[in-house]
């Protein structure tokens, strides 16, 4: 039996077309774009071409695209890079509680080490921020807002255009982490209206270790690493030519197919959600019922612990992830599940399925066939017997 991989939000495989597009840049056209010789020239042209194509997809200019080594690096560059330029103007940053750790920890770092102050906005039970609260939290010294486009754990999609309007109205720079959104949503930067946007390769069938930061012309930002002046001086280091090529190809593919793929996966997602809710009592759907990524299912299965269920599913070849404390490095349960107001009990029992290109109906049927039995077994040996309404009453 083949493995059923349902952890696409963690990372995807590399699309064979993408892989093929990269191949010649490993061995044949391997030059350094900074070299003044024919190898270097080919490499430079290759990177320029990829940058142009990506700029086209984002409706941006080529010199607004900065390649980096990952989504995390792009986020660090965006937040630290802007904050450090504007520190004389103000030292206040606004973000929200369900951001990726790359955003949260970067903000905490600036608070701790560089005297900034960050506001972490609450989210509602679906994971949405309150736009009024966002607006009223903007102060004279607010220099940056960083709000993710779509959440990696629960798939909730923020109202990024409205957020951009608020930021613009108050003259505050807006960064969005769009890593999870890139495969499914509109990433036309003029249309959504952001100043900075992070994307990465490993969520869209491109290699790991490649990311980009869109930097709108005129945005005050400076480098956080120093060296050879590549990437308009914002990200030194020899360009990762093959990965840049693969990234461009992958972005073209997912954006071209996004409507069709969103529709296809949305159906499978709904089938999985409905199936779980029908077959497994005492289950809570985490995230927004409609404003959610078409590939994301996140549920809290009461009275069992997520890692235990993960191990059972894994043994069946079904690969998922959990928000349980047991699998995190910090031994803390998911900050996202806690932020949407669920108590710890429900966070420990949360599991995430994220669907992707190879997911089909049979996979979902298989999950729905075996999962109720595993839940039953674990509940049979569990001394905890909470009901959904007890959990929801405890929720804020």
């Amino acid at each position, binding site marked *: 039996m083949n493995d059923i991989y349902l952890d696409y939000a963690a990372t995807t495989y590399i699309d064979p077309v993408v892989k093929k597009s990269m191949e010649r840049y490993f061995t044949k056209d391997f030059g350094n774009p900074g070299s003044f010789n024919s190898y270097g020239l080919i490499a430079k042209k290759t990177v320029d071409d990829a940058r142009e194509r990506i700029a086209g997809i984002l409706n941006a200019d080529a010199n607004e695209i900065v390649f980096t080594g990952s989504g995390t690096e792009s986020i660090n560059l965006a937040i630290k890079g802007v904050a450090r330029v504007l520190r004389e103007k103000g030292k206040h940053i606004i973000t929200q509680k369900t951001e990726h750790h790359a955003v949260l920890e970067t903000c905490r770092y600036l608070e701790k080490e560089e005297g900034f102050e960050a506001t972490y906005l609450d989210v509602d039970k679906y994971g949405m921020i309150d736009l009024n609260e966002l607006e009223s939290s903007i102060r004279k010294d607010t220099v940056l807002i960083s709000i993710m486009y779509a959440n990696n754990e629960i798939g909730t999609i923020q109202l990024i255009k409205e957020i951009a309007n608020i930021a613009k109205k108050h003259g505050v720079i807006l960064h969005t982490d769009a890593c999870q959104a890139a495969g499914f949503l509109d990433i036309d930067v003029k249309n959504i209206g952001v100043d900075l946007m992070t994307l990465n390769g490993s969520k869209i069938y491109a290699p790991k270790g490649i990311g980009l930061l869109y930097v709108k012309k005129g945005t005050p930002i400076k480098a956080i690493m120093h060296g050879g002046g590549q990437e308009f001086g914002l990200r030194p280091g020899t360009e990762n030519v093959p990965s840049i090529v693969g990234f461009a190809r992958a972005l073209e593919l997912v954006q071209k197919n996004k409507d069709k793929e969103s529709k296809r996966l949305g159906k499978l997602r709904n089938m999985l959600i409905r199936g779980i809710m029908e077959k497994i009592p005492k289950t809570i759907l985490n995230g927004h019922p409609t404003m959610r990524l078409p590939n994301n299912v996140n549920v809290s299965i009461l009275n069992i612990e997520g890692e235990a269920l993960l*191990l059972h599913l894994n043994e069946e070849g079904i690969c998922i992830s959990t928000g349980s404390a047991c699998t995190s490095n910090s*031994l803390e349960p998911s900050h996202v599940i806690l932020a949407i107001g669920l108590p710890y009990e429900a966070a420990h029992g949360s599991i995430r399925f994220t669907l992707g290109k190879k997911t089909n109906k049979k996979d979902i049927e298989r999950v729905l066939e075996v999962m109720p039995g*595993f839940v039953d077994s674990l509940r049979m040996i569990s001394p905890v017997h909470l009901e959904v309404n007890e959990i929801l009453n405890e929720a804020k």
Partner: protein
Amino acid sequence: MSEELYVLHKDVRVKVDAKKTNDWFYSDTVKEHFFSPRNFLRDKHEIDDFDGYGDVGSAACGDRMSMWIKIDKKNDKIIDCKWQTFGCGSAISSTSMLSVMIIENGGMKIDDALKIKPQDIVKRLEELPARKYHCSVLGDKALRAAINDYFRKTKQYNRIVEEGAKVIDTALKITDKDIEEAVLEGATTFEELQKKTKIGVKDKSCIPEAKQLLKFYMEKYFGKEDGKNG
């Protein structure tokens, strides 16, 4: 009774045997006990037959264990032990293993059962990642709670061993239990302990005792050397 091997999933059981590989998250023994846990309480009606009951942890903390024991009063032996666990793979496996250790060879003397330490369970499980140690700690705590319950019910009050926490840092009310917890969460040096608990930040007089307790718990859980799980 004690020989029962309850298989949760037939398919899985076959796979566990057939797939003798080491590519799993835990040792083969942990895996085996996880997929085929022994001695768990299946039927609530069984409870009436038991002489002692203990319940520790909470679902909010990520682990909760209940344990029921049956005593051969004449010989002061635990002759049956059932449990229920809410927790991760290693929590389930370590409770299962503990129950086996108690009732194998016709049962364990209560005094011996009280001496079971977390590392004894870990040893029988072959290995547990260091960060999963707290799961096995809960097992022996649940057992002690059940034994105390039996002592209480049979009025053997002098035998009850209370696990009262002792305040070490009087300024911040940090107890020996907090230090134990910090060690289980990975503190290996005093600096790490202080980072986790803030112990000694205000009440500097407690630092020598805190250091001693750190050493004690390090040795208790991780052996005499450098805190590595052997």
